[in-house]
């Protein structure tokens, strides 16, 4: 028989095994919940007011140039089969504070459609030439052209790159004066410097693209995208990268240029302006809309009424709830000794 003094099987007497671990045991008591609600409510109202005021200060100028309606400036350019330029005039009654950002916007455009989004080859875009000769399956039907030559960059996203271009003129004394548009650094730094890499074969970009064809909708091959700036070519083209960062929602805007230089570094002065649009991109077929947006930003980004209002609403609701809870608590609190 076992020795009674021996306790070989005795469980260890530790806080863990005996479930006596020291613990914080919070209770949702009135003393915490009600002041908590008040505090959060107040904080939210504060943030809400700040957001709302900031948002109000931001100037936004938005112009639809789709030309869907008769009489609108670009109505005649609807047919994109022929090159077309149209002009949109607008005037500013006061200084549009800088730096001013120039966006193009598309609506009803499903960049978030799954097959569309996956129709790209990240290997290709990071400059692996192996992916040039055999693009990823996901790129189909923009994988090979009809002659079975690989398309670079392959896939729908690249193929459908936005290709309207804009020029902005400040009309001074009836004379159009071009506003310098800065196209540098409009893409994320990480995208431009890490994600998208240009391959080099024999020292030139173009030779890397040998034996490949340009995307069907593109007027020029990728290594020749920007005729004005040779360093802005290949995959490391700002506009291309901006386009390739797919929008989450069907209505989106993408940064086109910044107005940061020269006389316009402090913003667009009051006056008349003309926007010259090279209208290439067809959207009317799927009932889409194109627009240009001028906007400045604040610490919280662009104009965004939603956040401010949401904060205000939630903050107020918290205050209301705290009052309700206080009343209920005062009225129905059970006596603690009643058990």
């Amino acid at each position, binding site marked *: 028989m076992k020795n009674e003094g021996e306790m070989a099987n005795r469980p260890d007497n530790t806080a863990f095994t005996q479930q006596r671990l020291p613990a914080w045991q919070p209770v949702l008591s009135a003393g915490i919940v009600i002041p908590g609600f008040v505090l959060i409510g107040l904080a939210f109202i504060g943030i809400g007011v700040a957001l709302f005021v900031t948002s109000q200060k931001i100037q936004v100028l938005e112009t639809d140039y789709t030309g869907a309606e008769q009489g609108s400036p670009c109505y005649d350019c609807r047919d994109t089969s022929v090159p077309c330029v149209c002009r949109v005039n607008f005037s500013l009654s006061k200084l549009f504070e800088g730096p001013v950002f120039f966006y193009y916007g598309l609506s009803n455009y499903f960049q978030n*459609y799954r097959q569309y989004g996956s129709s790209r080859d990240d290997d290709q875009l990071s400059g692996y030439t192996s992916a040039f000769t055999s693009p990823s399956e996901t790129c189909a039907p923009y994988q090979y052209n009809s002659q079975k030559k690989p398309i670079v960059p392959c896939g729908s996203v690249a193929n459908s790159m936005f290709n309207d271009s804009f020029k902005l003129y400040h009309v001074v004394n009836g004379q159009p004066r071009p506003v310098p548009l800065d196209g540098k650094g409009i893409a994320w730094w990480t995208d431009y410097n890490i994600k998208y890499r240009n391959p080099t074969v024999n020292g030139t970009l173009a030779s890397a693209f040998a034996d490949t064809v340009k995307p069907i909708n593109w007027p020029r091959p990728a290594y020749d995208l920007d005729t004005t700036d040779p360093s802005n070519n290949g995959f490391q083209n700002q506009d291309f990268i901006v386009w390739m960062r797919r929008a989450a929602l069907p209505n989106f805007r993408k940064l086109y240029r910044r107005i940061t230089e020269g006389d316009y570094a402090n913003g667009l002065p009051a006056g008349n302006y003309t926007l010259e649009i090279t209208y290439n991109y067809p959207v009317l077929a799927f009932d889409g809309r194109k627009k240009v947006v001028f906007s400045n930003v604040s610490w919280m980004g662009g104009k965004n009424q939603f956040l401010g209002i949401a904060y205000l609403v939630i903050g107020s609701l918290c205050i209301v709830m705290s009052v309700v809870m206080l009343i209920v608590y005062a009225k129905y609190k059970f006596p603690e000794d009643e058990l």
Partner: protein
Amino acid sequence: MAERWLWLLIPWRGAWTPRSKANGQEEERHVRANDREYNERFQYADNRIKTSKYNFFTFLPINLFEQFQRVANAYFLVLLILQLIPQISSLSWFTTIVPLVLVLAITAVKDATDDYFRHKSDQQVNTRQSQVLIKGKLQNEKWMNVRVGDIIKLENNQFVAADLLLLSSSEPCGLCYIETAELDGETNLKVRQALTVTSDLGTDVSRLAEFNGEVICEPPNNKLDKFMGTLYWKDNKFPLDNEKMLLRGCVLRNTEWCFGMVIFAGLQTKLMQNCGRTKFKRTSIDKLMNTLVLWIFGFLICMGITLAIGNTIWEERVGRNFWSYLLWDELLSSPVFSGFLTFWSYIIILNTVVPISLYVSVEVLRLGHSYFINWDRKMYYSKRDTPAEARTTTLNEELGQVEFIFSDKTGTLTQNIMVFNKCSINGKTYGDIYDEFGHKVDITEKTPCVDFSFNPLMDRKFRFHDSSLVEAIKLEEPLVQEFFRLLALCHTVMPEERSEGELVYQAQSPDEGALVTAARNFGFVFRARTPETITLYEMGQPVTYQLLAILDFNNVRKRMSVIVKNPKGQIKLYSKGADTILFDRLDPCNEELMYTTSEHLNEFAGEGLRTLALAYKDLDEDVFDEWMKKLLFVSTSLENREERLGALYEEIEQGLMLLGATAIEDKLQEGVPETIACLTLANIKIWVLTGDKLETAMNIGYSCNMLRDDMNEVFIISGHTSLEVQQELRSAKERIMGPSREKLGSGLDEDKTDMYGSDSVFEETIIAEYALIINGHSLAHALEADLEQMLLDTACLCKTVICCRVTPLQKAQVVELVKRHKRAVTLAIGDGANDVSMIKTAHIGVGISGQEGMQAVLASDYSFAQFRYLQRLLLVHGRWSYHRMCTFLCYFFYKNFAFTLVHFWFGFLCGFSAQTVYDQWFITLFNIVYTSLPVLAMGLFDQDVNEHHSLRYPSLYRPGQLNLMFNKRKFFTCTLQGICTSFVLFFIPYGAFFCAVRDDGSHISDQQAFAVTIATSLVIVVSVQIGLDTNYWTAVNHFFIWGSLAVYFAILFAMHSDGIFSIFPSQFPFIGTARNSLMQKSVWLVILLTTVVCIMPMLAIRFLRAVLYPSLTDKVRLLQQATRRQGPQEQNLRRVRRTSSRRSAYAFAHQQGYGELITSGKNMRAPTSSNFVFPVSPPGRVNVATSWIDSMLKKKGDTSNAVAMEKTTGVASGTEMSDRTEPQGQYTQTEEV
């Protein structure tokens, strides 16, 4: 000692079915001794036991096959296959395979460990040694190699290896003694006797080897008390019955050796056949979970269909134009087909609503809870060094939902130890001790014991606290001496003196043993007996009494007497028996003493002690001689021998002189009444199912407070026919519900299923307390189909239900009955093999471990050493487990809905294209890395109320029984919460991102930034939610919650880092997103807003609910917090006061005593160990005795019946007298103490 443990017999509750029908239905069994060739033709089961499922090679295929039979695993396999189809694959293959492989691996490891232990214990059983007669020689063989027809030699204290036919034994007349505790729970010894022809074979191996008798008998069955067969040997037929069988599971006692022939082996033994079918137990939450998973699956399909229809419409209206622009029309020919594909894509995307890690997490939790049970020191019994053990790791939360407890009595509620506790001698009580102020002192472990060192023959284990009795003995007070002399003489105990002074008493009932032991310690040592004499050492002096007659006990007489002649030549009759019986036979001069003794008896009974009255009488030699002649005459007569003997005994047991009374404590396990009281407060109904007889069971019922005098009525059902039982049940029910309600009640019978609700309302409304006691043979009728409902109804109306004299199978049937008709969780607790079937049948089986037998433990789901641990197991561990599991499940479903349904909302904005919102890695890791550990920590450690308060407020247990914490309603609430959260999670970022740009003007509203924002909000929201659900923040919780958040951000930044992108550019396209988006204040403002909107309503609702409809838990929590602030307070322990005043009339053997056996000298060993010369018994005596076994066996069956008859009449008379609450007419009503 370890090899004696019976756990070697049935190792694990494996998956075998006992009724193996491999070789068709066996009609009749033919076994020829020592003839393996002949026996092998019948392909009987061998003695090997196999409970394991796999071997090394079959493990992987079988285990995988089994695992994929689980719906969830199969579901994920299908998903995996779907994901490999490129057209519909909306997620990468790794999102499914990583969790699936993880889940499969964890389960496989667990199964493998389980099976390993099964193998090990099988091995241990199968390799036990036994001596088998092979080719004329005794050889040691492993158990598994024993075959039917083999002859086996057993030695003392060995376990019987298979069902044997007893051939011969070391004892005279082929007798042998066995202990059947493992089979029926009775610890008293039983006698088996071999056929005379075979017992002559003796120990002669060569003759045994030549033995070639053939047994033709019944096929294997589960009837423990019946055996029918015939032995054909040497052209003779010998009938065989159960009295010649040694069953597997018995232990040979007091018999040096015996030989037996194997009739049934292995799984065909009666023990194994009685083990009931092993069922895989599942908890109700498990079943609910499966239902819910199916529902979720349905919901998933609905969502898929909705989105597929959406896709069809979208493609038709919008997409069509969009395609033509994108030149896609060649890919997707028709919107309907596109919708069809989308359906599958969405099934893949939304698969996370069916939580794959659910099952594995639940298993982990249960395993953890099991370990906490194993580790609990408060359930560790240091005296036997036995910790509690959770043998099944899958049932823990059900411990928090138990409504019915079925308890065995012997060994479970009681220790089966009888202790001589008090006595009253000549009107003076002994046994209590008083302090100097005359107050009674509670006797504890520390109370000093009386020093018996004056007596070299004392039993060291005996404890007595009142020294005045020893003083009285030393003063040689004649009545005190006579008292102990009586105890030393008047019994049927057999002494065994292994070495000088080392006496062991072999008593047929523990009560008798206790009395003789008491006498021994007080200086009247019963040392030896022969059929003719009894030798005592009276205060060190040997005195030999001539034993003239034993007037044995039976349950009609309720007393036994001996007539002895002391050395001085005086003839004396010593009698002990039930007080009521003896008091009627006293000499009138005893009246005053009788009055005082009666007072004392009341006092003893009030403390739950089993009392006996003692009396003696001096006999005149002439009178005795005359009487003896009559006795001899009567005992040789054939007709009405019993009655005539009874009358003769009655004649001489008259005019007795009262000596006093004894009080024996049937020691309850520690803390039993308190535990029962506490469990009753937790609204758990406790039914006692015992193989013991009615009186004993009732006695225990009273002493553990299940039966009380203040109960309105105690019904005893002991009818012998179905009709009687029905009437008794009906009248009981009528009395409880009142005649007016009976109509409604009968309606219940007809409309069983629909009336559950109102039925329980009834149960609640009955305030009066009733008890139901039902006898085994009545139970057999009551369990028939037409009566069972009535039995159940009546029983559920009673506070206490006691079933006595029930067979193991009946125990299981009772449990089954409750299980079937009440949707309640049942728990069975027992210690013996007779409880195995019940333990296996109940939802939860608990075995009392640390006793000799391990059968019950092996069959059980939980085991511990003491009944009182049940309280802790249920109220603390069970409640916590249930609470944790429910909170866990609620949270789990919530989390998965919140996580997954974002995709659903996004579907409306992405052309129903099954575009995922999140990064694929996030989807892969969300459930298994980012959110699994905090909820596991919560599920393992949470304590809504600490253990102390759990025990203090047993009503906290109620929500579990009512299934309030996790049910379909709760499920809907938490999924709804999840859906709302997902809605907020999607639409707040949607609103904010609609036209958002970064503070440097570049765009932010791209897919990837959107994904990161929502994912981050989601992780934060669910972390805050788990924080709210956690009541008990241990360091581990802190670590896991904060750790998970940290790990989320770490992994997020790692996966969005430059380095990993440069290695796998196409696998990690999210490069830089985390940096670019999480640097933005506006993104954080969105996350903060989302979190607050998701959490605040929940917080408000919880707070308001706690204020408006506070649950007991809420109140106790507040109280707990208050006491914590004030520091620990001294807690007053609840003490249960015994209110019983029932006179426990006698404490006696289960069956008729060994009187005849003793006087016949049949069981006397050859005088090797004793110095005494045994006179040869007179021939007449032997004649009386030869029929002993037959008559004893015959009577055994009647015993219970006779008792039952009496009780029936007792009830009848009891119920007639309205002022009597006493259940049994023959007991005197006594005052409450």
